[in-house]
């Protein structure tokens, strides 16, 4: 077993999840099963392979250009309001579970 109940509690904490007792037990089982399968990646020697985080720095761009030059098309002048005005306050607050007229209201932040 790679993943213990303690690991699950720690990762749940990092993930801002609580999980019920039952969910934690299932999570131990499922993560071990999936990670056991994923371990097959260790059969490959990747010592000299560069990691690939994304596709868009290799394809659909002029690879003869370096660094930021390659993505010059994606930048714009720094103009007031950017490409469009910001959302109106009422619109920005419209989906909030607990707005007042100006802010998103949340429970107490600092515990004593």
């Amino acid at each position, binding site marked *: 077993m790679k*993943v213990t109940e303690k*690991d*699950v509690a*720690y*990762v*749940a904490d*990092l*993930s*801002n*999840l*609580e*999980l*019920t007792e039952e*969910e934690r037990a*299932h*999570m131990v089982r*499922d*993560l071990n*099963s*999936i*990670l056991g*399968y*994923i*371990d*097959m*990646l*260790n059969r*490959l020697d*990747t010592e000299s*392979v*560069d*990691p*690939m*985080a*994304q*596709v*868009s720095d*290799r*394809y*659909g*761009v002029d690879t003869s250009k370096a660094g930021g030059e390659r*993505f010059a*098309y*994606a930048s*714009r002048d720094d103009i007031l309001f950017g*490409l469009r005005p910001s*959302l109106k306050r009422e*619109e*920005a607050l*419209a*989906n*909030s*579970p*607990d707005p007042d007229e100006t802010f*998103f209201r*949340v*429970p*107490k*932040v600092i*515990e004593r």
Partner: protein
Amino acid sequence: MELNLLTIDAARSAIQERKTTSMALVESFYARIQKEDSAIGAYLTLTKERALEQADRMDRLAAEGKPLPPLGGVPVGIKDVMCTRGVRTTAGSKILENFIPPHDCTAVARLESAGAVVLGKLNCDEFAMGSSNENSAFHPVRNPRDLSRVPGGSSGGSAAAVAADMAVVALGSDTGGSIRQPASFCGVVGLMPTYGRVSRYGLIAFASSLDHIGPLTKNVRDAATVLHTIAGRDPMDSTSADVPVPDYVAELEKPVSGLKIGMAEEYFGDGLDAEVRKAVEDAIQRLAKLGCDVVPVSLPHTEYAIPTYYIVATAEASSNLARFDGVRYGYRAKNARTLSDMYRRSRDEGFGTEVKRRIMLGTYALSAGYYDAYYLKAQKVRALLTQDFDEAFKKVDAIVTPTSPTAAFKLGEKANDPLAMYLADIYTVTADLAGIPGISIPCGETREKLPVGLQILGRHFDEATILRLAHAYERSVS
């Protein structure tokens, strides 16, 4: 009007020539949804007011004798992971059950600007995580070809709506196969464009380096028309590519004879259902008869695709889904004592099991001490998988494979075994990781009359060639 025969061109020209009206067409689609969808479950929200307004605009254009835009009056459905201004957008999740976006997804806006009529929002696996549509927080979707079976996922509602004639066209999203696999299970066409070909502005993010938007349609020509409409640079999405958009419909008519198509043995190994294999091999034979050269190619790292995918996708998801905290939008747990209690309980109560599982897996893979062993390792193997395709495409113009190792499975069959469910994507995830385009088209049926899908993969930004091959195949069998 026979709804089952309606394609984009047929719908548009019937309205243009005043054989019907866009209003009447919309009404007949809603009547069909009313009649059929209680058994299938494809739609989560209907947008009747918005649809009738757009239909009225199209009818007035037609009445004035003005030419309709390319999708004028065409009824479409939108996977519920794409934001629609003023219309509830749930991502199939309880956490967004009452979310009403203030903005439109670019792909949806482009369809509507081209005259399309949005009928409603389509069911999907929660946050597009799933291969059977059983992970929807609302209800599963059933396969219109056999109601005891799944439609595939995650764009199950999109595939089922097109297959059951409840939309002419639907938009779906594909992160590991979520357009192509349901298209295959439901017997429709599903196209995943190249990474960056279509803007994702307004798409609720799952895994940002893998997410794609694309069409599900009844035929290849419609897929070409929709792609042409939604493709191209969008200033609102910095990952949308600055690459010219060809006329995909005109390109369909170019000959396929002389094209080299690759067949990789790695896609025909253990686990491939015998009937699916037969149907796909027959389809490849047919392409050979049309003058294509079938060439063996090797994609040696293929078996590592699923483990790589489930690290990369879940790592990105764990980060993307951190935004759902009950503060600015979405579900908030009641009576939380503190802010951190509120975050946890809102997420606990708002997310479903599979979403939590993936957040946990992704967070684990990114956590201190495991980053190198899992996340970095997966990124390196992703590079190898991509190189496999780069090498193969030096020899061939396209690669043909089965879309899925089996035809549609039964509801509940894999629901309690996450790993078995993940393996349903075994032939589709690699294209997402490499960012290449892929299309699934129907290529026959099993003895149980379940559709089989042929997948055609192409070079980056070469959707034209895979559409052309798919079109030639489709024409040869119809």
